[in-house]
């Protein structure tokens, strides 16, 4: 029952992500746009390129969707609305989301196309850049909660949300999450203007629809993760828990989609430079500061 409800909520969330994304690009609210776009995609022919690696080509969009869905299983929307409260929850999210990389590598290699291939390998470089900035801020979050249970992490923020307790960690995690979801300015792997869609370039029809759906679910999953780790999850005055979760998740989603809109796409080398020379020292500093804070003011 819980599983079905959360899947339904994720579907609604993905739909809203599509609406918000259309708004950030076009400036107009078109509530039916995802439906018409979806129908258009499903109605089109789904072409399989010649000499493609058929297994990878077929598996990639599904794997992208599944990894985003599996990561969502350990995220609580209310104290009771969670599929499975794993003892390794915060680590499990990372484990599931690493398979986004595997899916994109498959999508890059599978169709035997130059643009797709470059897009796929680019994401590997992108992972080298952002991966540490996901794991290290999460370490600081787990330090405060003294647990990897996601419900425990939310409970640890009852007095003060982590966004205020460890703002540096929040900024690093937020940027890294945008890179994980390949949102602008980190959309190196799809890069419409230079790679003609990159990993998406050779997909069409129903396969592209699944791919895009996977990406939308990935965005909503990451927004939920941000809310659970930094914005106190379901906590808040007056409104019921589910409403707070919904408001926060949608706000974070909108922020994620808006943040990079005005920025030019970052170069691969610049991203690596920025993440390793600035991001990782800051993440270490964050762990150190949070460690001190926990000792003096738990």
């Amino acid at each position: 029952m819980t599983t079905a409800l959360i899947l339904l909520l994720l579907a609604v969330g993905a739909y809203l992500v599509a609406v918000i994304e259309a708004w950030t690009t076009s400036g107009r609210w078109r509530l039916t746009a995802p439906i018409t776009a979806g129908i258009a995609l499903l109605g089109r022919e789904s072409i399989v390129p010649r000499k493609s690696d058929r297994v990878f080509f077929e598996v990639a969009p599904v794997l992208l969707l599944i990894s985003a869905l599996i990561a969502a299983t350990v995220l609580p929307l209310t104290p009771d609305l969670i599929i499975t409260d794993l003892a390794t929850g915060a680590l499990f999210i990372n484990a599931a989301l690493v398979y986004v990389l595997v899916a994109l590598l498959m999508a890059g290699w599978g169709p035997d196309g130059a643009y797709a291939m470059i897009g796929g390998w680019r994401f590997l470089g992108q992972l080298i850049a952002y991966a540490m900035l996901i794991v290290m801020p999460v370490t600081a979050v787990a330090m405060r909660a003294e647990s990897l249970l996601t419900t425990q992490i939310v409970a640890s923020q009852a007095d003060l949300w982590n966004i205020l307790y460890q703002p540096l960690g929040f900024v690093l995690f937020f940027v890294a999450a945008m890179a994980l979801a390949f949102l602008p300015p980190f959309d190196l792997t799809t890069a419409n203007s230079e790679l003609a869609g990159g990993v998406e370039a050779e997909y069409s029809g129903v396969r592209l629809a699944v791919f895009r759906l996977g990406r939308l679910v990935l965005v909503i999953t990451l927004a939920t993760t941000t809310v659970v780790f930094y914005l106190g999850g379901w906590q808040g005055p007056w409104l019921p828990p589910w409403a707070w979760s919904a408001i926060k998740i949608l706000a974070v989603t909108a922020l994620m989609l808006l943040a990079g809109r005005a920025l030019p796409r970052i170069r691969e080398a610049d991203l690596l430079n920025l993440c390793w020379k600035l991001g990782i020292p800051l993440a270490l500093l964050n762990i150190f500061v949070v460690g001190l804070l926990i000792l003096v003011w738990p």
Partner: protein
Amino acid sequence: MISVQLFFISFFGLAAVWFAVVVFRTHSMMRSALALLFSQTALGAMFIGMQAEFLGVLQIMMMATEMSIMAIFMVMFMMDPGGLGKMDMTHQKRLSVIAGLVAFVAVVVVAVFADWGPLASSVPDAAQQIEDLGLELLGRSMLIFETAGLTILTAMIAATAVAVEPIKRNRD
């Protein structure tokens, strides 16, 4: 309960073996690398089946990155990465077969005849396991792990130093 557990452990065990066989059967470097990944993922699932949740999740997470990075190196360095040329990239087959069989027999002998000590009657719950592991890493095993970490860090810095192009100092 125990039979469900046994079923899953056997299932993922067979999956791990099957993907491991695929690693050598395919000509494509990319398929080979990702088959190895899924073999390792199946091992991670076996750990979870054996109630070692942290170990399993860690295995599933680490291997995805590692095998993907291995994939790009295989594609870069092998002559026929796509396997479309049907190039035979194996060599010393007889030696490999013998070495493989000897290693297999050795593993089976160790597994069957080693004294594994008394069976644990109960397993601490997953959260307790993580706590115990953390205390272990910062207690008795600290020196070993810190030494290993430092060694890996040294190797990383050395590898980077070897790989980067030397700065040309005398421009003029």
